[in-house]
Every structure is written in C-alpha cells, then in structure tokens.
C-alpha cells in the first residue's frame, strides 16, 4: 500500500483544524460547516478504502496463510535519545487499528453532519468545527500509533480536544469547571501511565542489543508484543513491593486507560463532561475517546497476557465499575447523565471481557481469543448504538430545551423518527436479538462464563440492569405522561431537521445489522480467524434476563403510576446515595479541598512565601544596601577614576612583586 492515503487520513483533519481555526472567523457558517463535513467525508472514504484493502485484498503484507499481520505503512525516526530509546512517528495497520479507523471516521462524519443542524444557532460555530477536526486528527493518530510514545502524544492531544469541546460553552461556569475537571482527572491518570511507559521501556532498552530483542526501538508495539515472553525473562527478578516490575508497569499503563475510560476511582469527570454540546458527547464521550483505555489494553494484550495479575486487576476494576455505573444510571434525572453512566458501564464490560481473556480452561479452544474478540466487537457495536442514543438525546434536547426527563414524556407521537431510532438503540444496548448489542454482549458473556462462573453471573446481572435503566429512560421520555406544556401554542415538539435525522437513521440501520458481521473473521488477538458461534445457554439466559428487566421497566414506567415512588420510598437511603452517585464527587471534594489544599498546599505556600521568596528578598536587600553605600565612588570626576585605577594597579603590582620575591 502506498504511503499517500494513510498520510492523508491524518493530514486532512489536521489541515482542516488549522484552516478553520485560523481562517474560521473570516468564513460564513455555511462555508465552515460544508468544508468540515466534506473533509471528514473524504477522510471517511479513504479510511474505508484503507480498511477494506487491509481486510479483503489478500495482499501477503496483510495476511499470510489466513493469519492477519501487523503492517507498518511507514515509521520514521523522530527523536533518538539513545540507540534503543528511539521515538518514531508512524502508521500501523492491524485488525484493531483498521477497525478503529472505520469506527472513528464513521461516527465523526455523522457527528459533523448532525452538528450542522444542532449547532446552527450557536456562536463559535466555526471554532466548533475546528475543534472537531482536531479531535478526529488526534484520535486517528492514537489508533494508528506504531509505538507507545506516539500513542502517548496523541493520547494527550485527545485529552486537550476533549477539554476544548467540553468547555465549548465557555460562558457557562459549569462547562468551564467540567472541562477543567475532565482535563485534570485524566491528566492525573496519565501521569501513572507515563511512569509505566518509562519503567517498561527502561527495562526493555537495557536488554542486550545482540539478544533476541534486537536493536529495535524500545517503544515499538510490534517489537514489544512479538517478544512478550523474552521481555518477561529480561525483567524477571526485578520486583517492587511484592510484584514483578512488569506487572507494575502494565498496571500503571492501565491506570492511564482507567482515567480516559472512566473506570471507578477516576470516573468522576465523565458525567460532568456532559456539559459539552451533545454531538460532542456522542463522538468523544461515548464512541471514541473513552474507549481509548480498552484500545490501550488490546494494543498491549500479549504483554498483559504474560502478567495475569494485571489482567485480574483489570477484571476486578471493570466488574465493580460496571455494576456501580449501572446502579447509578437507574436513578439519574438528566438523560445525558443516564447515557454517560451507561457508557461507563459498557466500557467496563469491555474491560472485563479483556481481563478474563487470558485463561485457557478448555484445551484446544481459543478461549483467550474469545474475550479479546468479543471486547473489540462490543467496542464496535457500542460505538454505533451509543452514538445513536446520544444523538437521539440531542434531538430531544433540541426539541424540549431541557436535559431532564421530567420535562419530557409522551414524546412518541411528536417525534416519530427520534422515537423509533432511540428504541432501536435501547434494544441494541439491552441485548435483544437481532440488534447488534445482543451478539457482542453474548460473546463477552460467553468469555466470562468460560473464565469463571462468578464473572459471568455478575456481568449478566449488570446486563439486566442495563436493560432496565435504558428502558426506564425510554419510557419516561416517550411514554409515561404527556407534558401539558406541549399543548400550548408554539411549544409543540417536532422531529429535528434532516441534518440531524439522517445520522440517526444511518446509525440505527447500522445498529440493526452490525451484529451479523462475522467479526471473528476480522479481529482476533493473534490474527487467526475465530469462528463465532452462539453459545445457546448463554444467549437464552441473557435474552431472558433482558426481557425480564424490560418487562419490569414496562410495568413501572410505561404509564404514570405510583410504583416508582413506592420503590423509592421503600429504600430511601439507597436511592439517595445512588442519585448522588454514591458521593464520589463529595469524597473527591473533601480529599482535595479539605486535606490536600489545607494541609499540603498551605504548607507549600507558606514555604514558598517565606523561605523561597525570603531568600530572594534578602539577597536583593543586601545588594541594595551595599550599592547605596558605595555608589558615591562614581562621582563623575574622571580624574578621580584615574586615581583609583592607578592605585589599584599599584596595589596589584606590589602584590605581584611580593609574590615573585
């Protein structure tokens, strides 16, 4: 494959960012919008072509005897610190990066088109498209990175674009604080990731150059993943606090992924990130950026496999997060927050699926491949239906001018397109066949049951909760009781303009059929095809659970009735705690403001003000004191200077003379 097309995939969004960012103020809204949409359409077409070539061309670069290969389209040296510590910039094509190219450009194109209708009247329209282009560029650069350092750079760039887009309505104090929160929390997590990267590459680069690792860059993914066993032997013996250094490095790298993917202790930024424009939530905080953590683990999967402790850690974090987020989502009023917690829960699902993928309980069957493949499959289908749900929520907010379901209700008659597409999204996420979520979730659950029955049962429960809260919100928006406001003149809600409806319809169509893609033929952990077959007991169980949950939601929320209030009053403590997201934000507030600010920051400020500033002030004072004392010597009388000069010369001469004698 020539280098031109892959470079264009990255260059076009970057160029659009510069063009719209610099020249946007001079453009009309229409021109900026059309430029952004056209450019992204071009990128999408090129990405489809590249992915299609990768998967279907049968080129020996890409597939050898049925095994898909990793192929570096280009990989140029950027910074060479030492012989082994070499940072490259490149373009890696392998099953997951080709799949991500398709996902990112599809969702990004849909969001570009949708925003044309959604953001039509907002000030800063051109700036918005510039930021969208920047995000698309960063995310594409992240997934095609050939080495961990390039990935880290783009990892930070997506963080920046996320920050810029969450704070897009910068006149709202809530948006500003949400953007700061998102940036600080993810940046805090990335610090651990950087430490992990440095630890890993330090040990790898210390391996002898004539050894099995060769002299390749210590950051390169291909080298690291192909030599996972060798690296384990190189690092063996180096331990830290009872764990091997490699385990620590991989866990630290995963902490970066926890920050971006909103896993439990670091999830607090994602619900607040909903302050950003809704299409941005669909693109960044549902479909692409937040799955970067999953992508990171998948990228390093061979290394994670040789340190099973880190995979156990990932499983536990994911399982707790999935349950927690699902419970919280049952009690939220803001529909975007429900979707945000649902995203956290679903990403945690993918994490668990990756975490359980290492075990081989049955001989001769690629069960380790199953969890990996299922996780990537779910990443794909989830991106489509969650973007659909978010864009649907955007259409609702556009029509009702509120984020709360209390202002909605009975909307199905007024907004048929939104209603049907939203319903398809809900059915997909709940796991009802034949919608896409069913197939991917079924594979994930099968992988979990294969690992240990406990993970399977636990995540089946989470899947039931998912179906319940999604249909709760669906019924509360579209059924329940019609809001009397709608009867008033001029308040009648209606479907969104075509720019917003078309993406909804396309994504709904994708959600209907994506489940039938034989995903195992394309994306597996080792490149060999995996033949997907439905595990009948798992599939039947999960359908029954989902149907029960949907039935419960129907009973509780289809028509206005006192049942939900009764439930709420039956366990007021639990409801209140879940509604306040189990007080995580308050805990963080307490720890940062009361403990860190008061104890650490105050003492540091005192030290800065009194010791550091004091030293500098004393230095200046002493200098000033002496200069005032001796400045009279500069009298302006040239002859006095000459006398001083000769006196000095004489003294020096005398000293020299004495010394020579």
């Amino acid at each position: 494959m020539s280098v031109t097309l892959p470079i264009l995939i990255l260059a076009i969004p970057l160029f659009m960012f510069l063009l719209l960012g610099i020249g946007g103020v001079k453009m009309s809204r229409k021109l900026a919008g059309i430029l952004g949409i056209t450019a992204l359409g071009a990128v999408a077409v090129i990405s489809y072509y590249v992915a299609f070539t990768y998967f279907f061309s049968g080129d020996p670069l890409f597939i050898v005897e049925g095994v898909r290969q990793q192929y570096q389209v280009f990989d140029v040296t950027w910074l060479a610190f030492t012989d082994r510590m070499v940072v490259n910039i490149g373009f890696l094509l392998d099953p997951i990066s080709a799949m991500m190219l398709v996902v990112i450009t599809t969702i990004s194109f849909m969001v570009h088109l949708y925003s044309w209708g959604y953001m039509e009247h907002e000030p800063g329209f051109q700036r918005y498209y510039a930021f969208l282009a920047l995000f698309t560029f960063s995310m594409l650069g992240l997934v095609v990175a050939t080495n961990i350092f390039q990935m880290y750079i783009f990892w930070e760039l997506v963080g920046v674009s996320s920050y810029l887009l969450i704070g897009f309505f910068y006149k709202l104090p809530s948006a500003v604080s949400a953007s700061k929160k998102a940036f600080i929390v993810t940046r805090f997590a990335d610090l651990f990731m950087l430490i992990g990267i440095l630890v890993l590459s330090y040990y790898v680069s210390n391996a002898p150059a004539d050894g099995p690792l060769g002299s390749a860059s210590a950051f390169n993914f291909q080298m690291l993943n192909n030599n996972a066993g060798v690296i384990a032997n190189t690092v063996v013996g180096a331990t830290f606090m009872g764990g091997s250094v490699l385990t620590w490095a991989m866990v630290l790298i995963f902490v970066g992924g926890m920050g971006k993917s909103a896993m439990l202790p670091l999830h607090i930024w994602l619900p607040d990130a909903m302050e950003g424009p809704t299409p941005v939530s669909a693109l960044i905080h549902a479909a692409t950026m937040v799955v970067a953590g999953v992508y990171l683990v998948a990228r390093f999967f061979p290394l994670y496999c040789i340190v099973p402790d880190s995979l156990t850690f990932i499983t536990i974090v994911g399982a707790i997060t999935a349950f927690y987020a699902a419970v919280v989502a049952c009690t939220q009023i803001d529909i975007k927050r429900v979707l945000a917690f649902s995203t956290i829960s679903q990403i945690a699902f993918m994490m668990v699926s990756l975490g359980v993928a290492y075990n081989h309980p049955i001989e001769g069957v690629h069960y380790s491949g199953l969890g990996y493949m299922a996780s990537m499959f779910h990443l794909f289908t989830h991106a489509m239906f969650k973007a659909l749900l978010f864009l649907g929520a955007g259409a609702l907010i556009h029509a009702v001018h509120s984020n709360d379901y209390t202002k909605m209700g009975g909307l199905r008659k007024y907004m048929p397109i939104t209603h049907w597409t939203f319903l398809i999204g809900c059915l997909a996420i709940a796991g009802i066949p034949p919608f896409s979520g069913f197939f991917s979730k079924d594979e994930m659950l099968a992988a979990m049951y294969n690992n240990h029955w406990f993970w399977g049962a636990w995540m089946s429960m989470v899947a039931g909760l998912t179906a319940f809260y999604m249909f709760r919100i669906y019924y509360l928006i579209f059924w329940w009781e019609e809001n009397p406001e709608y009867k008033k003149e001029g308040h009648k809600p209606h479907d969104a303009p075509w720019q917003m409806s078309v993406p909804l319809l396309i994504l709904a169509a994708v959600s209907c059929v994506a489940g039938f893609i034989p995903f195992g033929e394309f994306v597996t952990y080792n490149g060999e095809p995996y033949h997907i077959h439905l595990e009948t007991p798992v599939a039947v169980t999960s359908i029954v659970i989902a149907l029960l949950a949907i039935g419960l939601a129907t009973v509780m929320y289809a028509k206005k009735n006192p049942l939900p209030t009764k439930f709420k009053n039956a366990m007021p403590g639990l409801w209140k705690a879940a509604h306040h997201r189990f007080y995580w934000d308050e805990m963080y507030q307490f720890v940062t403001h009361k403990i860190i600010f008061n104890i650490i920051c105050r003492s540091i400020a005192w030290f800065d003000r009194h010791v550091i500033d004091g030293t500098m002030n004393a230095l200046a004072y002493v200098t000033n004191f002496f200069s005032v004392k001796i400045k009279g010597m500069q009298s302006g009388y040239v002859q006095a200077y000459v006398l001083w000069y000769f006196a000095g010369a004489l003294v020096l001469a005398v000293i020299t003379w004495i010394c020579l004698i």
Partner: protein
Amino acid sequence: MDLNMLWYLVPSVIMFVAGVYGFVTRKNMIALLISLELMLNSADLNFVIFNRFLYPGSMEGMVFTLFAIAIAAAETAIAIAIIVNIYRKLHSTEIDEVDKMKY
C-alpha cells in the same frame, strides 16, 4: 658605550609617568588629551624597543606601532570633537565642570 635596552626604556617610563601626572593634575581638557597622548606614545615606544632588542628578526612590533599611531590620531580627533561640543554647551573646558555622568 654600549646602548642596551635600558637606555631606551627609562625615557619611555619618564614619559609615561609624566603623562599620568599631567592627566591627574591638570584641569584643562586639552591638557588632559596631551597627557593621554604622552602615555600612548610611551606605550608605542615600548613596542618598538622590545621588538628591536628581543626579536630583531621580526617586524610585528613596528607594524603594530604604526597601527596604534593611526588609531591614536583618530581617537584624538574624536576627543577634540567631544571637547568642542562640551565647550559649546558649558562654555568651559574645565574637567571638573563635566560631572553629569555619575550615579
């Protein structure tokens, strides 16, 4: 009588000290300039003397002296120009009148 280096150096030192004395004691700026020229010439003389007696084969000292004389002429021109300007402002060439450039 054998003329060794000392016979030339002693007049040079006398000239230099006379220049220093004049520079410190005289108040007229033209006189200061003359004293300065005395010191400079004594230095030039030293170049020539050392070249002649210590390195008779080479010419660097002589050439350097010629350069120094040319540059000294240019300096003197600048100094005279400054003095003329000062005279136009202050109507005096007394060095003690010019004490504006102090702390």
